[in-house]
């Protein structure tokens, strides 16, 4: 895809890795293989911190029924900790902090020009810009993005944004969208990868108006068979 972009670039244009990659030279570049490995690590990590709490809760009641308050606390941990991680995953696309609404109308116009008709309509109703790319389907928000790799069985949360707090919300989305289009792997490398797990876990924690965007992205991702 990058090669196609380079080939179609007018004279005087350099297709290059994302400029911000220089900020994180120690990070392994993110690609499809990295994402699959990262997803498996997250799965086993979730099992590793959930099963002991479940086991302890069940074991305590089996050994001494009067210990059920402690067992309940243990079971609550088994439920709360994964929920907190899912909340963190959903938070990457939530609206955050003070926002400059002053230039939003102008910014919305520019962002609309960058998107095709369907993605523009979805962005206007949900606040999230859907972008199909080599690694899957992205939902880009103001302060991060969710990625649904082909198959749509997993969601990855990336926390990333621009440091300029004065930018209107749609300009923040446009910043991330342009960076993603420039170098998808570089974008995912620069961003902090904060979650990998089942999309339904993220969906439950998303604000209601954003959920149709997640459903639409998953639908598109499902149409693409997962790579091995």
């Amino acid at each position: 895809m990058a090669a196609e972009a380079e080939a179609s670039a007018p004279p005087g244009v350099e297709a290059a890795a994302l400029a911000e990659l220089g900020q994180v030279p120690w990070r392994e570049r993110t690609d499809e293989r990295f994402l699959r490995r990262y997803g498996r690590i997250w799965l086993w990590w979730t099992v590793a911190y959930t099963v002991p709490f479940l086991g302890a809760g069940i074991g305590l009641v089996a050994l001494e029924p009067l210990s059920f308050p402690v067992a309940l606390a243990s079971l609550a941990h088994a439920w709360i900790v994964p929920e907190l991680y899912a909340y963190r995953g959903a938070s990457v696309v939530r609206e955050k902090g003070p926002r400059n609404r002053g230039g939003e109308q102008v910014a919305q116009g520019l962002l609309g020009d960058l998107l095709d008709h369907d993605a523009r309509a979805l962005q206007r109703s949900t606040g999230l810009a859907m972008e199909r790319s080599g690694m899957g389907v992205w939902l880009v928000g103001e302060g991060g993005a969710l990625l649904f790799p082909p198959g749509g069985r997993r969601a990855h949360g990336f926390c990333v944004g621009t440091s300029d707090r004065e930018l209107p919300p749609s300009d923040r989305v446009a910043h991330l969208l342009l960076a993603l289009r420039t170098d998808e792997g570089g974008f995912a490398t620069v961003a902090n990868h904060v979650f990998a797990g089942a999309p339904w876990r993220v969906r439950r924690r998303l604000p209601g108006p954003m959920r149709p965007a997640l459903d639409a992205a998953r639908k598109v991702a499902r149409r693409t068979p997962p790579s091995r």
Partner: protein
Amino acid sequence: MPRLIRMDASGHSTLAEWAAEDQAAFDHAISEFREQLDAGYIGVLDQGEGHATQVRELPREAKLVIMRRPIAGG
């Protein structure tokens, strides 16, 4: 007409416009472009259909060049 814009607090500001045959306007656009690079902005040429390219020199044939701020993991 090709345009150079900068995303900022106002939504976006048009910094320069030039016609292919208007060398003076293009020179002005180059000067604006370099000023923005020096101020830490990154030039991006959106090529549509999910493609964009960073530019370090202003392409005369570009329709729209957008100056954006750097991003970082949050």
